[in-house]
């Protein structure tokens, strides 16, 4: 399974980028993803705006396949797990927890996660209301939340739903969801199907950006400058 992945070493830790928009931290056997926005469609439905919500089932099914395939011991979600106030889609999280009973599921709270903590507790999920420090990393939903952080720690975050724009000959252009590994912090792509993209760019020569093109991941060259 790992051969489809791209390896990215960070602070001497081996990380693997998964094209399904997730990150595999091999040493700690943790599958990391961010911004599920589960319950979004149903939230809209409750407000009289009709949307199908079957993609949520697909999204969670894929998490299970990944977690089981990788023999993950833990699933870590960097916030915005649930889109808004409680609705029936939360049941999906319950069943996810049941299905992944041997894995621990941990959540770092995001700005959308406004549900009472007891929902998570009842489902057997661990909710971190503050950033989570582990190894050389600090896991946080929105990197802007971090203040007075120990600079030895490298933040891995979500929140912005990063996307990268590519340009080619014949004046083509294309936008892809991406992983952003900057000098100071990293941002994971949004995992949920019902999420948009916010365009990011290389901000320095040290930045590394990996675009997700269908089932492949490709490092985006930094030499690239957008035509003006």
């Amino acid at each position, binding site marked *: 399974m790992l051969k489809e992945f791209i390896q990215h070493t960070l602070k001497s830790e081996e990380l693997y980028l998964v094209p399904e928009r997730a990150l595999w931290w091999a040493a700690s056997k943790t599958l990391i993803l961010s911004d599920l926005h589960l319950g979004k*469609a149903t939230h809209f439905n409750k407000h009289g705006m009709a*949307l199908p919500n079957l993609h949520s089932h697909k999204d969670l099914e894929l998490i299970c396949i990944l977690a089981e395939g990788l023999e993950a011991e833990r699933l870590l979600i960097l916030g915005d797990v649930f889109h808004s*106030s409680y609705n029936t889609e939360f049941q999906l999280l319950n069943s996810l927890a049941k299905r992944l009973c041997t894995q621990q599921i941990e959540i770092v709270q995001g700005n959308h996660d406004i549900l009472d903590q007891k929902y998570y507790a009842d489902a057997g999920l661990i909710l971190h209301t503050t950033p989570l420090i582990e190894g050389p990393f600090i896991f946080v939903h929105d990197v802007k939340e971090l203040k007075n952080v120990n600079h030895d720690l490298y933040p891995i975050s979500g929140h912005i739903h990063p996307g990268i724009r590519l340009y080619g*000959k014949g004046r083509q252009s294309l936008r892809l969801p991406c992983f952003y590994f900057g000098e100071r912090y990293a941002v994971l792509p949004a995992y949920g*199907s019902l999420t948009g993209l916010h365009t990011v760019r290389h901000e320095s020569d040290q930045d590394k950006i990996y675009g997700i*093109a269908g089932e*492949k991941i490709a490092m985006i*060259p930094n030499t690239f400058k957008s035509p003006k």
Partner: protein
Amino acid sequence: MSAPPIMLDRFHLWFKNRKWKPFAFQEELLQLYFEGYSGLLNAPTGSGKTYALGLPLLLDALFKFQNGKVKRGIKAIWITPIRALAPEIEVSLRNAANELGLDWRIENRTGDTSAKDRAKQKKSPPEVLVTTPESIHVLMAQKGYADFFAGLECIIVDEWHELLSTKRGVQVELALSRLKSIAPGLRVWGISATIGNLDQAAEVLLGEDPPRFKIVTADIQKKLQMETILPNEIERYPWAGHLGLKLIQKIIPIIENSRSTLVFTNTRGQAEIWYQQLLAAHPDWAGQMALHHGSLSAETRVWVESALHEGRLKLVVCTSSLDLGVDFRPVETVIQIGSPKGVSRFAQRAGRSGHQPGAVSKIYLLPTNALELIEAAALKEALKEKLYESRIPVIRAFDVLIQYLVTLAVSDGFYPAQIFKEVKQTFCYQSINESEWSQLLAFITTGGETLRAYEEYAKVEIVDGLYKVNNKRIAMQHRLSIGTISSESSMMVSYRNGRRIGNIEEYFISRLKIGDVFSFSGKNLELLMIRGMQVFVQNTSKKSSMIPSWNGGRMPLSSQVSALLRKKLDLYVDGDITDIEMETLVPLLELQRERSAIPHEHELLIEKYHSKEGYHLLFYPFEGRLAHEGMAMLFAYRMTKLKPATFSISMNDYGFELLTDQPLDFDALINDDLFDTKNLSDDIFGSTNYTEIAKRRFRDIAAIAGLIFKGFPGKMQKTRHLQANSGLFYEVFNDYDKNNLLLKQALEEALYFQLEEMRLRKALNRMAAQDKLMMEIERPSPFSFPLLVDRMREKLSNESVEERVKKMIREMEAS
């Protein structure tokens, strides 16, 4: 009953007191009205059309009043497409009523009407309500609306030609279908400027099975005169572009010598730039000139309109915002910057000048690039021959129907059988079938298909067969969302004291930093802060080159003008040059002939060109940009059926360009199959780009059908967690609810309206029969130049994303 002699006398007396003479059509309308006719009045702005229908309405009331048959309540509704016009119409009608001695309340009701006035109107309705299509629907969302409208005798739809081809027109059709049931015997009258399909306009307005009706044409001939502003040296005039500032010195004397001038531009951004440049060229006009476009605050616009009306302004730079409405009598001259693309619009704008009886309407056309001179020559002929365009009515707009059904559910609820019968009578929905109807009902009650409801979906409930919205919040949300005019997410710009300047799209603001200076409303403004959806600015003397752009649809060259354009070129090739515009263009056209060729009417010009950017293939069907977009997609799809490739395309009103990074055997690819109209829609559906177009259509559809809620007014932040990107919705529907009616509508709209399928089909048949004039060019020809430099590109590809990314990365690494 024909008009009683006593009322006929009053009619003539009224005109005599005003020192006017009634036109024959005005007398005819009086008779028809008393006889209970419905119909369509074809009359230009400034012809006394308001009185032509207003007087019969008031005299009929007066007659009934004198015979003691009066009940209070709404008797007539006057619908206008532009709410700024409502007060004007109200005043005209009220003055006439006073002069006739009729004690009637005549009021307007639009989005601008205060809550207090609205409540008053609800409790004690005026006899005449001047309003907009949206406001009628808002009224139908009120409890007891049927009683409110029960005494209605007449509806007049002003500027029907403007509404006809829009979803607002559909709103009018739906409102009429309901009101005809509530108030039997209702007369329906439309007022329309001259268009190519007047009969159809009447058919759409009156619906199936219309009452006695007649089309009345105003016997007024207005004299139109057009003059093109010619560049001195055509060789130095730009080959591409939309500004035309190089010719500014040529219009200054025209403005100087005219009492009052309107300068029309095609976009709001253009208007801002021209305003600034004219002011810079003639600083002493400050105070006598103004700017008018749709993004400026209502106060500013009203001020400009009344100042213009009173003759206090020498010059107003404006957009289509001044196409309709108020008679600006002092206006002597109209200047159009850039091709208006259609004859009707051009004539309408020309008609804004010369309102004095017998006066000539004079309009100048300033071409913004050299090739527009051909359009000028074509337009001149089209004006002379009165080749007015048709307005194509909207059909099968499910989004508007969904909105309407929820509107009825919000007020008193509805029984589907009754409403289905009414809806079927409208032109827009005459083809709707039982299955579609039940899908619509399912959509508003369960969300998804009949068999599988969306979870927790809450909207319309069914109680004893009555479809009703009981949830107060949803009812409120719906009332606020009534309407079909889509607006980009825009931010309100105001001074620190709160005075509003206007609206700018969020996208433009998002690229600015605090302290940046931009031009808007003819002023240089410094960005101070952004609070929620509000932008605070102050005036500054600092200069700026940043001017907001607004996303407005650019109209394609109409088929009438396109055909004449091809004819002008044909005549030119054979040396028949009579128009001054074509004569001016000789050096440029000769260059075109030297580097490539100029096509006869029976020829199709195709150019091949190889540059650093890749391999260019250029077609010149001269068929308008929308049909060209469709052709480009179709050709790209057909050429890449065998071999995957990626094209980027550009198009304008004359032709389109396919650009690819790999050499293709164009000569072999351009064969009869390319122009075949068989499998046309399938091949267009096959193009990946089609999805993008459908997605764009879906954005408006989703908003109209209530899938996207824009938030409660006055709330700084958008409603929490209900922000949405319609593009995502589109994909979710596409993946999980493919039969969704709104999705289907988006696909249909993309084909019929965005790509002008009918026109495209006709053009392909013409092109198939044409001789192909294949030219390999060494240097860009004048025709190709605007296409080659266009940076606003679409891409077309049938390569996989993985493949394209790999290629792009390889290229990026190589560079």
